């Protein structure tokens, strides 16, 4: 327990993690507040189309970030989109991470034919560039957020499998694993008690960095029409619609982008900081 507190303290001392975490907390706080307090609903269409930021509304709050092409309040939609997009991102990494973890563990630990087959399958999956494969899968199964999540999860899963497998391979031959096997420990126990602790740090770091990737993927798929559909408040979709009327109003397209940027930035910073923390060379310049 104490060791974990120590680790957290060290992690928090890394500048990048501090910055990333603060941005994340600020965003979450703002989004939550807006969702709870906003007088507008995310799908509330009105005649007040393309009102600029800070334009007064029929309620007691002005439209802080303006309205979009259907008269909906941009700030409210962005806040809902924050919750939605981050949740989708988490769903993606939970799915791809879990599957990738299991495949990596099994493949690395068992080796032989199983390893060969699984890795061949992974190789086939990555023969197509990720985004293309996501498009292929999403376009076949229908354009909705759920399919988009599945598609992105399938595409990113091999990364975890490869990573985990690598760690398993290097720890498999280590002394304490051999000793555990001598002592007669069952395979599952060996994997969970001895190999998994070595896998987790690298896995978590990768997952954190993949989270921002996942959010970008989902938003991009929605942008080209394959993910979220109207009236879902989703950043990519909002930017796609906003782009069409960009000459009349820039804010419905730009503000969702900025929100997405800040979110992605914060996760990247945290992931970067974690990676530096785990780097045995412990780079001095952060």
């Amino acid at each position, binding site marked *: 327990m104490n060791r974990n507190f120590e680790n957290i303290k060290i992690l928090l001392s890394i500048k990048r993690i501090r910055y990333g975490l603060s941005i994340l907390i600020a965003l979450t706080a703002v989004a939550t507040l807006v969702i709870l307090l906003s007088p507008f609903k995310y799908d509330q269409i009105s005649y007040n189309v393309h009102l600029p930021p800070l334009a007064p509304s029929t309620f007691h709050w002005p439209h802080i970030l303006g309205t979009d092409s259907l008269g909906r309040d941009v700030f409210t939609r962005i806040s809902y989109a924050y919750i939605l997009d981050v949740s989708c991102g988490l769903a993606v990494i939970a799915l791809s991470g879990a599957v990738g973890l299991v495949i990596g563990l099994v493949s690395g630990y068992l080796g032989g034919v199983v390893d060969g087959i699984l890795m061949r399958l992974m190789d086939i999956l990555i023969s*197509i560039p990720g985004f*293309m494969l996501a498009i292929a899968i999403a*376009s076949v199964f*229908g354009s909705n957020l759920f399919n988009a999540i599945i598609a992105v999860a399938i595409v990113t899963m091999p990364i975890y499998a490869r990573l985990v497998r690598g760690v398993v391979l290097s720890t498999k031959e280590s002394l304490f694993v051999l000793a555990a096997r001598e002592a007669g420990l069952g395979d599952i126990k060996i994997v969970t008690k001895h190999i998994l602790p070595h896998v987790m740090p690298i896995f978590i770091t990768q997952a954190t960095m993949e989270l*921002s990737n996942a959010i970008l993927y989902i938003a*991009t798929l929605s942008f080209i029409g394959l993910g979220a559909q109207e009236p879902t408040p989703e950043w990519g979709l909002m930017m796609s619609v906003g782009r069409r009327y960009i000459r009349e109003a820039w804010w419905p397209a730009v503000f969702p*982008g900025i929100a997405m940027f800040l979110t992605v930035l914060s996760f990247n910073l945290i992931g970067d900081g974690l990676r530096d923390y785990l780097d045995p060379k412990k780079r001095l310049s952060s």
Partner: protein
Amino acid sequence: MISYIFSRLLQSLLSILGAIVIIFILSRVLPGNPAIAILGPKATPENIERVTREWGLDKSYLEQFAIYFSRLLQGDLGDSYVMGHSVNVLIRERIPASFELVITAFVISSALGIFLGILAARKHDTRLDLALSTFSVLGFSFPTMLLGIALLLFFGLNLGLPVGGRIDPRYHIKIYTGFMLIDTLLNGNISAFIDSLLRILPPALTLAIPLTCLLIRLGRNSMLEVMMQEFVRTAKMKRLPESVIMNRHILRNALIPIVTVMGLYFAVIVTGDIIVETIFAWPGLGRLIWEAITLRDYMVIQGSILVVSIIYIAVNAIVDTLYIYIDPRIRE
């Protein structure tokens, strides 16, 4: 060396086969009748009959794959009923535009990225280095969609420059190479050249900036690592001129990790290209995919994805071979 090229070629062919298999599986896993999906709004009973016969949709999956594969070997990607042309023709007329955009972005980002990366390494731990590092982290996290829209606004609205498309449609340019920048010059039309230059700049920059940031980080770290190597000390001992030490000894070694990343590089370009072409109405392969998605044109989607995948696999193979050529230690 030769044996490596052979085995790498074989690997690439297997990857291409894998891509073909995946795309085929996906095309048949569609909910509903594939013929209807292919035909879209043109799904009349005669057409459905024709398509079913053409692709053997009433036969077993193995036979269907055989038909699909044999047509592929002849370079036939099928016909798009939705858009009214063969997929080959559609793709072929769009590729030069994407090519020009991608190459321009690649050149800009490589030159800028490597230059700034070396600068950051030379002046490491100074304020300039910190500024560059911050910029590169920010730039890499900046979503391409936002960057594209922002540059569209900036160049189009703020600066009032022409944006969208490759060139003002009022110009009549005879096509020689398919590269607008070159063809306008070959036509002797300077104002057309300037117009096409201004129009390619925003999308190329949108593609180039994330890549530049990637290269700055990579270049800086790689340079720093190499500068600490002992053979650099040997070069200093030999009293070689600074330029020789930098070029022959430091840069050549620092470039190796950058080359290995080139494959990833290309994947980033591919992802960004679709977005950029959509935002800037650039008539390339990326925009074709977007149009196909909007129109639910599965033939074009699949054909385009296959073409892009093959290019991707080829690029990776070339990069790996390049890597072996540069680093003699790997040649076993």
